[in-house]
């Protein structure tokens, strides 16, 4: 793809189960909503909407999480974090270590059941995530990024008086004030 080698790491294999769960729950909610609103829709649209939601449930549940999992690749290197993902839109994002403000890990309800956590990487321009890693891996990666970001400052970050890459592992920014 380019001079920079493609990222090689994958997400946890049972990330697929988490996505299957959220996808099918979403489809069921849509089905119920359409069924409840059937009187509000004109004649052909109700059937079309129901059919679409059913197809999404039956075909999408096995297909979409599998494809998404196969496409998701990531890599944490010394100077950058490299993310590549997407089925219809393939995105590849590079985040320089020197720009990482803080890192968090987060676990939702489904993640709790499967022992999966999401790593969130915050920069001054917004946040990026590596979703659904094994709990232990996610913690290790959070610490690794935090450590790398602490030591990696480029010329711009250094002249940034008083902001030597504000870092906490897992805590919101600002707790190291005062």
């Amino acid at each position, binding site marked *: *793809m*380019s*001079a*920079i080698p493609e990222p090689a790491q994958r997400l946890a294999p049972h990330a697929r189960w988490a996505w299957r769960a959220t996808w099918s729950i979403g489809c069921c909610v849509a089905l119920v909503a359409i069924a409840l609103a059937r009187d509000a829709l004109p004649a052909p649209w109700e059937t079309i909407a129901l059919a679409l939601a059913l197809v999404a449930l039956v075909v999408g549940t096995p297909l979409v999480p599998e494809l998404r999992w196969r496409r998701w690749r990531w890599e944490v*290197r010394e*100077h*950058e974090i490299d993310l590549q993902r*997407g089925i*219809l*839109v*393939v*995105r*590849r*994002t*590079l*985040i*320089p270590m020197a*720009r990482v403000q803080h890192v968090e890990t987060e676990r939702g309800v489904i993640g709790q059941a499967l022992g999966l956590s999401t790593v969130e990487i915050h*920069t*001054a*321009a*917004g946040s*990026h995530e590596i979703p659904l890693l094994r709990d232990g891996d996610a913690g290790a990666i959070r610490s690794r990024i935090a450590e790398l970001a602490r030591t990696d400052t*480029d*010329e*711009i970050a250094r*002249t*940034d*008086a*008083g*902001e030597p890459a*504000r870092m906490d592992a897992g805590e919101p*920014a*600002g707790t190291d*004030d*005062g």
Partner: protein
Amino acid sequence: MGSRLHPAAIAVYAVDALRQGAFPLLVILAVSVFGGEFDAQAALRAAGFALMGTVVAALAGAFRWATTRYSFGGGETVRLRTGALSVKEVEIPFARVQAVDVEQGPIQRLFGVYKVEVQTGGGGQGGEVVLGAVDEREVAHLNELLRRGAPDALEAADSLPAPERRLTARRLALAAATSGQLGVLLPVAAGAAQLGQQLFEDPIEGERTLIGALPEGVLAWVLVAAAVLALAWLLAALGTVVGFGGFAVRRERDELRIRRGLLQRRQATLRVARVRAVRVVESLPRQALGLAALRVEVIGHAKEQADAQTLFPLLRRDEIEPFLRELLPEMADALDGLAPPPKRALRRYVLPPLAATALLGAAAALALSSPWPLLVAPLGAPYGVLGYRAAGWRLRDGRIAIRSRRLACSTVLAPAAGRESHELAQTALQRRARLADVAVAFGKGTIARIRHLDADDARGLWAAIGPR
């Protein structure tokens, strides 16, 4: 520890207290006035309450002033201590100070003092330390200490001239005349919505007022529309004059000082090291006249939206590069000579907006059963063509330039090393046409995005921005 604020702070704090207590006071006032018959006695009582409120506020202000101490700790730490019962103490090491905003509100102006907000990178609303009233000498002292603490303050640079640019009255007028923004139409829309709601809630009465208020005939409608647009234009122009009156920007070593405001003078100090990108914004009316506004993306500045985002309100297009070379050479680059996306990308710029406007026009025409909304349908095409014509990119000597257009044409100029992240994106359709998008994020407000580049160019650009 430390010293007291200027006594004018009593007035500042009193007004603060009044403002906080204004709502309950108003309620008390309303109850006392409307609760009983309105007579001389009630009016007297109301005046009594108002007087009492003012006295209480003044006492509260005096108490707060008496219990507030601050110090600049000899250039090591900014300290602020307030309160007697519950004491709050803030300490900010000078090295952590990201910005100092000096501002003069109406009260500060009355006493000839300044409000100083000291900000750190943590970035909540407003400054971490707010000094309500300090005199000019203290402001100068603080600026002196900040300069001394700055990591790369070059003493040798002292003798260098500090370039400054001011906005002339003629340019201010021009900026005001071309500042029309759709945002000011919102109050008009809100008024119309309220009228609609009235009609909905009370059809008979509502219809009567509505019909009374409705213009008759096409000419009257056109006149009303013209009046609304003229009013919106006037409001926008007024906003520009008030906000940018007396605009001046000055480069002092590694800082930019920006002063602006007609009624409320504002001064903001920006460290150049925190400026990540410059945006040249050419709105449609300004582009027609060869004019543009200059904005900056600043990292970690809590009030950047309001204060520090405009580097200069209006410049002629050909003045921009020399302006930057003088005041902000770190970002200076040529505006022109960008590479366009390939010809085969044109239809991808045109088709989506055209489909959107066509759908919108058709839906509106069906809903209103009138052919007029169909006039909207073809508008997507010129929008798309303009978007394609504007799009361009360049990466040279580590400097990125990316231009794109929504309604206004926006060119981002920045050193590639200052980005927060960058992204290469390709949809399934783009893959077949060997096209791809590149987006480079410089901050929350500046994401330079160019769509539908040749896939190889896009990959090359993405890789060249590179890990370092």
